[in-house]
């Protein structure tokens, strides 16, 4: 019986470990996605097609500077899934001349922007004053700018306070300043070029949210940056399917183990069953004994397997995922594991129990 408990324990522990790791991985990735940047982008709808690919623009069609009114942005917070909205980061974009060179200016609510772009690394202090500027690494190199340098934009004095480290993204080439100040420089007070939105996407319907926002802004093109999310979720789903596959296999092997052990146990205990029958036990009583044993074995195997599985998942997670943390004990998984172990043990013992109950007492006693 000890081997039977061990078998069930290992089986349930394997299932619990795999499912707990999958769940933790899934949560970890969702958390990272929540932390790392926007997953919805709102742009003004354009009738023209963009003639650029991979950062190379072939010109011909100029970007039509269509903008939103900043005052309308409050409507975003009125969508049905507004509780899933995290950061809303509006921006104004426009060209400017610095040191005789054209450069793209971006005005943003810097607190929101920095909260959204957690991967930005910089030298110097984060901007505090409206005339403080962040300079992208490529722009700083091309314009020969350093921290503390003064810049004049449309006649207004600004100071470089922050230098961005290279990110490989579009921000490498731009100058970023406080939204209202840049709106003033570009003469677009109260206007917004685009909005980046971070939605907490664990279980939230990102596609639906996109549609909800689009309904509020008929002139906007609202896009969900789903590719990255989908790719990561797909790999998790793949692992989840793999885990379920292994779980089914383990259940099958576990059932066979219980069946073979119980059959062996019934064969070994022919004599004992003979004694039970001789002293007046009915067939039902013999079945009860075998099934009760199976239930106890299932309960012990399920409980200890769940405990062991969680322990392994807790210990293994930091190895499986860098900086990964255990998602915590899932009590419903515990309930399911224990019920599964009991059901598996009972089902696999049903035939052996039936066989035991049908043992002819005279044949069983011949072994006496």
């Amino acid at each position, binding site marked *: 019986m000890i081997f039977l408990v061990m078998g069930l324990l290992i089986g349930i522990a394997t299932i619990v470990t795999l499912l707990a790791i999958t769940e933790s991985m899934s949560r970890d990735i969702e958390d990272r996605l929540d932390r790392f940047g926007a997953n919805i982008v709102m742009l003004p709808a354009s009738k023209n097609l963009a003639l650029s690919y991979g950062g190379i623009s072939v010109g011909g069609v100029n970007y039509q500077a269509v903008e939103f009114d900043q005052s309308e942005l409050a409507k975003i917070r009125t969508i049905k899934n507004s509780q899933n909205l995290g950061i809303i980061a509006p921006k104004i974009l426009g060209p400017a001349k610095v040191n005789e060179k054209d450069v793209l200016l971006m005005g943003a609510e810097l607190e929101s922007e920095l909260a959204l772009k957690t991967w930005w690394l910089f030298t110097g202090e984060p901007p505090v004053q409206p005339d403080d500027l962040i300079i992208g690494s490529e722009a700083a190199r091309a314009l020969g700018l350093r921290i503390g340098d003064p810049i004049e934009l449309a006649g207004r004095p600004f100071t470089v306070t922050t230098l961005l480290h290279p990110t490989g993204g579009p921000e490498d080439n731009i100058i970023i300043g406080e939204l209202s100040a840049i709106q003033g420089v570009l003469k677009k007070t109260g206007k917004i070029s685009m909005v980046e939105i971070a939605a907490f996407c664990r279980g939230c319907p990102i596609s639906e949210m996109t549609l909800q926002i689009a309904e509020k802004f008929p002139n906007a093109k609202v896009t969900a940056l789903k590719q990255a999310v989908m790719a990561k979720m797909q790999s998790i789903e793949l692992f989840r399917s793999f885990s379920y596959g292994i779980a089914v296999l383990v259940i099958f092997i576990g059932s066979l183990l219980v069946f073979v052990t119980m059959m062996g146990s019934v064969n070994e205990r022919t004599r004992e069953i003979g004694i039970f029958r001789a002293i007046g036990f009915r067939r039902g009583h013999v079945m009860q004994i075998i099934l009760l044993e199976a239930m106890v074995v299932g309960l012990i195997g399920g409980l200890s397997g769940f405990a062991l599985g969680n322990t392994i998942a807790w210990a293994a997670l930091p190895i499986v995922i860098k900086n990964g943390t255990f998602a915590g004990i899932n009590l419903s998984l515990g309930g399911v594991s224990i019920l599964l172990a009991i059901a598996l043990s009972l089902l696999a013992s049903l035939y052996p129990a039936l066989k035991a109950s049908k043992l002819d007492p005279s044949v069983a006693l011949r072994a*006496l």
Partner: protein
Amino acid sequence: MQKNLHLIDINAIGKDYMDGGTAVRAIREMDFFIDDGEFVSIMGQSGSGKSTLLSILGGLNQPSRGKVLVDTLDLYALSSEQRADFRSEYIGFIFQSFQLIPYLTVKENIKLPMAITSVKDREQEHRARSVLAKVGLDNKGDRLPDQLSGGEQERVAIARAIVNDPPILLADEPTGNLDTHTAGEVMALLTQLNRDGQTVIMVTHNPAMCAHSNRTIHIKDGVCLES
């Protein structure tokens, strides 16, 4: 009319086994009775059919022909489950080689026949203590069977057989595994139980043991030779 007064009435029973396609006649034909309160020995050589007869008497082995009446009840007209209830109520088995459950304590082994009855826990405890005292093992109830001597294990087997106070005790070679002294003690215990009112039917191949019984039925080649 006279026959119906017997506790057990064996009517022309026979038992055939199939052994690899060959019919083996274990009991040719037997006809005898046992009265309430008797101590009967069934004696015969190994293979004479005496253990088969005992299992038929205990409702464990359906005869190929004939009837077994116990208290006028046609035992083999009952269903298998009804016969299980009959064994629980009427029969106490004392097996060859004790046949105790090794992982249960002495007291748990003794309580086993009561597990399927409606006897309450407190009453079960009381009865177990009472029969332990009767077989002289008052202070060994918490031991496991393998911590006891052969004679003591036989006493536990007897205690288990009588705990439900069945009217019939069936003993299969109860002294077969015991030394002469211990065998004498066990026979004295069975005699005492018989004196207390229990009908005892004992299978043995040892003529010395028959001296304790009121009557001996000799069996040879599946045929009963009344003593």
